[in-house]
């Protein structure tokens, strides 16, 4: 099967993730969408790695996962914190600062 298709899939996932970030209100979901985008990247990395026949891409994918994990740690912490202080995880509620 032509690896390029995986690239299209990656692009698709990335777009879905981006769209989700733009559309969804719940901070958690938004964050999940970001993760989705990261994973789209991973897919792309792996695919390219395959195409080029070197392993860099795959290794990067591992790094990405680690980073994503770290982001989850920090991100969830922040989100939880704000949820506790305003009892809502909606991104739109957090709009005290504007203009």
């Amino acid at each position: 099967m032509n690896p390029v298709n995986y690239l299209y899939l990656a692009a698709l996932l990335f777009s879905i993730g981006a769209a989700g970030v733009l559309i969804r209100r719940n901070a958690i979901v938004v964050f999940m969408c970001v993760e989705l985008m990261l994973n789209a990247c991973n897919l792309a990395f792996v695919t390219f790695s395959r195409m080029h026949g070197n392993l860099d891409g795959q290794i990067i994918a591992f790094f990405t996962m680690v980073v994503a994990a770290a982001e989850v740690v920090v991100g969830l912490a922040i989100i939880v914190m704000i949820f506790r202080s305003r009892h809502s995880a909606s991104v739109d509620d957090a709009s005290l600062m504007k203009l």
Partner: protein
Amino acid sequence: MSTAVDVHNLWTMAADPVEKIPAPHIEYAQLSPTLIVIGVALVGVLVEAFLPRRSRYYVQLLLTVVALAAGFAAVVGLAAGGFGGAKAHVAAMGALAVDGPALFLQGTILLVGLVAVFTFAERRLDPAAHGNRVDSFAAQAASAPGSAGEQAAVKAGFTTTEVFPILLFAIGGMLVFPAANDLLTLFIALEVFSLPLYVLCALARRQRLLSQESAVKYFLLGAFSSAFLLFGIALLYGYAGTVSYAGIANVVEGRPGSVNGALAGTMGNDVLLLIGGAMLLMGLLFKVGAVPFHMWTPDVYQGAPTPVTGFMAAATKVAAFGALLRLLYVVLPGLRWDWRPVMWGVAIVTMLVGAIVAITQTDVKRLLAYSSIAHAGFILAGVIATTQDGISSVLFYLLAYSFVTLGAFAVVTLVRDAGGEATHLSKWAGLGRRSPLVAAVFAIFLLAFAGIPLTSGFAGKFAVFKAAAEGGAGPLVVVGVISSAIAAFFYIRVIVLMFFSEPKPEGPSVAVPSPLTMTAIALGVAVTLVLGVVPQYFLDLAGQASTFVR
């Protein structure tokens, strides 16, 4: 030779039944600045774990200061050792560059960090709670604002001394960022310094809600942008089959080391390259705070604890612009004719939007945020020059700008009323009457921002504009000049407010800071004036440091 390939070799060898593993070759001495900082950061974590509360503050402060000072010393040593010029090369198996720009920027970041630490550690501004001196960070970040838990924490005199190691981690990341010599390292460094910043933003003692909101916004948008960055990396990798700067550059210029079929296939496909490059740029421009990726800046700057804002505003810009420079000058010079026009557009929009929107701001921190956006535009003008002068002017500008910014935010921490810092402009009315010195100092910073001669702001602005003009970006200079004229308006507005309007009876008071903040501010003023009146030495420094290794 690219990192990943080597790593890959290790990998495969590890699979063989041979027991000895050749360690990757790493020049520890040349990476010492970073290593020191990261190392001490880890120690700081241990301190948090094992030392009793009351002693932590002092230990942490001491450690941090020592770490940064040592790091700076190391940088100086390396520079003196000629790594800035003749001996500049790529270290850590191609992962990091040790060259002029890297060292200059690392030095700047370390100094900025050092000064920032002073403002972090300031404990005299807020009235003591239950007899314990407090700094501008939450007693216990985890506890919801106003909750019983928080009150308990305050009563117990808790303080978030974790900020120091967190700060060090951020600085560590920033040290790597401009030195990163392959895209993977770039990405990692980005995350390493971003994540701590997200956390720091959330730690304000006063106005927690704003603080948390800023953290959320910063985090989500930051993650969003780094996703773009990562995808860009992916595409570039796809295009070039490697993530090392040199490798990509070679491919872009059409002379790769070895061409296999797949590479030949992707190499021809410039769309990958262009889209990838664009997304990469976007990721960096986000950190820089360039329009249209700037919108997080005002909110985050306003919400974050002021010392953190000051640090972010200064250090992040330095690191990000360093990375941007390296990317454009080392990886994509072959693409100059594609990205220059685009960056022109970005620079122009950034300068204008920053200046114009700032006019109607009513909050000092937001005002400074927009001003930082406008300055990002000015620096971009220097970046676009794509000449030796361009690089050195940007380096100089970053040095000058970062200290002005630190000083300005440090002053902001001093003006307080019952609700903590009084950041609303209306409260600054007549400050000049009540405490002329503070007002005068702030005025100096504002004038530097406005680029009035005899301040570092002017020298920097002249340097970048000169470089841009020489690089054939005359129109850009004109736009820059116009937007500085617009920008002048709101800096002046603040000065008018401070000096020419009658002080309000219920106006804020100016807290008398500890020597820490005083040093920070004094340093800011000193650098501002020195770089304004006798900039030659530093211009030379930047000039010598303006060649990238590849």
